[in-house]
């Protein structure tokens, strides 16, 4: 143990650089985030039909995200950990509130209206679920026992179930992904993973039974997109044409015919990856992917440097979840994955998920910036 302490002291003690006095500023993370948002802004400008006003609104959302990032960067991980159960159960309570209101309003209900702001409680759970799993394992010995694994699975599936009932299958899957990745990082054995996978396969028919018609339709169309060329399959077909016709170098900025002739649906939100592919070609897309990988890499580095179980698991889970978002979106647009309404992080127009995402990166920065000079 002393050997480990010694090593920590060496890697973290020296050369810590804090440009703004005592404030935590994770320069590599900020630079990478701003780069992606910048590239995204350029593509978005084209996808929005060269509307500067709409682009400014996206800029303001990113600004709001940056503010959330800076604020959370300053909160020591110890406090993040202490507040975790509160945040988690508050999020659950809000989900129930929204559900009850939805019962009364007889329809899909995802938003909570606080008079001043409206937000989706499910967004809280995207962060709170992995935090809660990490909190749960913090005092416990890794790898988890079987009963502990069951407890963690419940932590993830209960909110996911509530969200799926809204119905918002996309967000429910994201919550399962972020919580599930945390559990995997906690080190459950390969056998347990296999058991869960088999159980999941068995649960599929039950899940199918409870799915809404439009959700089933999506599964069908995923299995064979050409079967519904008038509906969801249309998006896939047009996105493929857009990307494919971009070629190696693309048609050039603002020159994407698919996007500008309005063939491509949802081009400023879920399908913006296709706009990028059409206008900037394979090289543009690969550059974007490299930027994303750099952020994931930075996140995993922070996770490896983290000093306790909570921060380690949280940092790892946040980074992997980020990659998951990127892959699901890009995979969906290029026809590798089913159409699930997941935006391309930091690039797609839209505010709610942007703030959540940046808050997550704020926690990453905090975990890195508040490492102790000496071992605990």
């Amino acid at each position: 143990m002393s050997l480990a302490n010694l090593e920590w002291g060496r890697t973290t003690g020296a050369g810590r650089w804090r440009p703004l006095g005592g404030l935590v500023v994770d320069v590599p993370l900020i630079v990478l985030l701003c780069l992606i948002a910048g590239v995204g802004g350029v593509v978005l400008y084209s996808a929005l039909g060269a509307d500067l006003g709409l682009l400014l609104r996206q800029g303001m959302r990113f600004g709001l995200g940056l503010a959330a990032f800076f604020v959370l960067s300053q909160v020591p991980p110890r406090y993040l950990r202490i507040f975790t159960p509160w945040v988690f159960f508050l999020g659950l309570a809000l989900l129930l509130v929204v559900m009850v209101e939805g019962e009364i309003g007889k329809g899909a209900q995802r938003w909570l209206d606080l008079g001043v702001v409206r937000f989706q409680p499910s967004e809280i759970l995207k962060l709170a679920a992995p935090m809660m799993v990490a909190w749960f394992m913090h005092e416990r010995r890794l790898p988890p026992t079987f009963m502990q694994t069951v407890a963690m699975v419940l932590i993830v599936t209960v909110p996911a179930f509530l969200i799926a009932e809204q119905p918002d299958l996309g967000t429910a899957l994201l919550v399962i992904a972020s919580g599930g990745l945390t559990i995997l990082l906690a080190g459950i054995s390969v056998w347990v993973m296999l058991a869960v996978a088999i159980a999941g396969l068995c649960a599929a028919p039950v899940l199918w039974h409870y799915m809404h018609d439009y959700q089933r339709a999506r599964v069908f169309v995923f299995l064979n997109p050409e079967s519904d060329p008038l509906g969801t399959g249309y998006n896939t077909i047009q996105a493929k044409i857009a990307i494919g016709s971009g070629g190696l170098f693309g048609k050039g900025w603002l020159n994407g015919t698919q996007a500008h002739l309005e063939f491509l649906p949802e081009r400023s939100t879920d399908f913006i990856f296709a706009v990028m592919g059409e206008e900037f070609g394979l090289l543009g897309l690969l550059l974007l992917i490299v930027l994303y990988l750099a952020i994931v890499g930075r996140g995993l580095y922070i996770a490896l440097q983290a000093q306790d179980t909570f921060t380690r698991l949280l940092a790892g889970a946040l980074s992997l979840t980020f990659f998951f978002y990127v892959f699901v979106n890009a995979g969906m647009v290029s026809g590798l994955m089913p159409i699930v309404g997941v935006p391309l992080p930091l690039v797609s127009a839209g505010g709610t998920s942007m703030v959540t995402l940046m808050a997550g990166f704020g926690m990453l920065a905090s975990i890195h910036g508040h490492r102790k000079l000496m071992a605990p």
Partner: protein
Amino acid sequence: MAGPSLALKDHWQEQRLFLSRIIAAGIIILLLTGLLAMRLVQLQIFDYQRFSELSQGNRYRIEPLPPNRGLIYDRNGIVIAENQPSWELIAIGEEIDNLQETLNSLEKLNLIDASEHNALRDLIRSHRGFEPVKLSNLTEEQAATFAVRRHRFPGIEIQEALARYYPFGEASAHAIGYVGSISLADLERIDRSEYAASSQIGKTGIERAYETDLHGRVGYRQQVVNAQGRVLFDPTVKAHAENVSNLIGGLESKPPVPGNNIVLSLDMRLQLAAQEALKDARGAAVAIDPRNGDVLAFVSTPAFDPNRFAAGLSRADYNALTMDADKPLVNRALAGTYPPGSTVKPFISLVALEHETIDPHKPVYCPGEYHLPGQTHRYREGKGGTHGPVDMHDAIVRSCDVYYYQLATMIGIDDMASGLKAFGFGAVSGLDIEGEKSGILPSPEWKRKRFARREDQTWYLGETVNTGVGQGYMLVTPLQLAHAEATMAARGEGHPPRFLIGIENGTTRAVKYLDPASLTRVAHNPEHWDFVRDAMVGVTSEAHGTGRAAMKGITYKVAGKTGTAQVFTVGQEEKYKEGDVDERLRDHSWFTAYAPADEPRIAIAVIVENGGFGADAAAPVVRKILEAYFAAEGYVASEP
């Protein structure tokens, strides 16, 4: 592997475990990224040529193909709703250069209505570019006008289509309803891709209730079109199909599945007879087969021509219909609520007999008015005059109000309400089209729920008295009363009324007939059913019977009951005289009947608004329906 949870954490081992997981995750990330990159290379390098051609100039268009809407038949196979060839003007949003200008030019040529301009613009914008949007129906002349100018309107086309046609026009309007253009509101509640090629959707009545069955499933064909929208390749042309499969790997088409035809319980002969009998009045007629709940006739007048809706009614014409004082768009048969008046008396008699409230053979003296003990308010005989001593049989035959004023106070409101509820009063009957009102079955419990203020919630004995003759708060719909009458005819073994009796598969033409819905049983002593039936037969046959004149000469036994629903309250010292009151304030005229009384096959309720006394206006309508029914059935009645 599980140790005690209090055991010290082994940080070194934990870190190694975590490191291995991160390395595994890193490898998976790289593999997935590689997969994604390979996919992109495949799309953007290897398939570049194909996709590039698709996106340049030549465009890929999917043309949706509309299914044929199912037909609607009456019970004898007579077509009530069919499809006729017509011309439609359609717009394909993605091919129009300047939407505003295009619409303006079409307006100048009188091809679209000026009042529709904005609605059409919004409709086109709310559709995806490739989805055709119907602008209007064209006459042959208009089609010719457009055809010679077609080149000036890229994105606007004439399309041969099938338009809904209702051969019976007004007579079927309120039962069948109509189809109309798909509105933005409709788009919210339908599967949009199923309607990609359809321009019409069921708006009311049967057309709406069985929309899913009637509509069918959309088909499509993929085409390659040039920038002007001209079709270059069509998979249904064989040479094209081979040519194009080299270019983009095959075009597909899927034929539409026609909608199912549906068979209704309606008998158009009765329907037409009822419509004809009511044509100059405001009113409604509903006839039900008591043996299975089949609705044989369902008329509300005045009606409207559903063909005008199917052809596309302009905003101005629609407004004129809604503003009409006679309210032709209101379906009086199921949404018109009226006091039932004396038609409720046979039902109340059954309740009294069941509770042994009164000896039905003991006469009660009718002096022409009734007083509650200790009160001065006069409850008057509806038609004025006195009946002298009447027993229950006479009270039904002659429709004596005083008898029922007293009987109501003897039964009490709670038993009366629960007895009437069993016949379906105060609740929707469950007919399979939308818009049914439940009416009101008053009771102290209803009053507590209905009124918010405590002082309004008190139930007064006088309200019990009024309920005894179907006045006061009580309201029924003609459908409800016909349903109750059918249940009475079936001696309590009633069925919920229904329109749909069969579905014919649009492709295989196999017809599936449906069983009637389960019984709604009302239990009464057989002698009591007989007693009330005999009294109702007396109404149409005995010397003093209020319905005798209208049913004179009929060869089979008809059980009937007149009713008069007050619209206007006459002052305590005045007398109601028809000539004195404004036509709109005159009493509504009811007549209910079932026949033949011994083995009932049809139960009817008819109301004529402001028609005066029940026997005057409504009874002749009932008679016409009965004549049409028994003439059609070839029924030979036994001598009465």
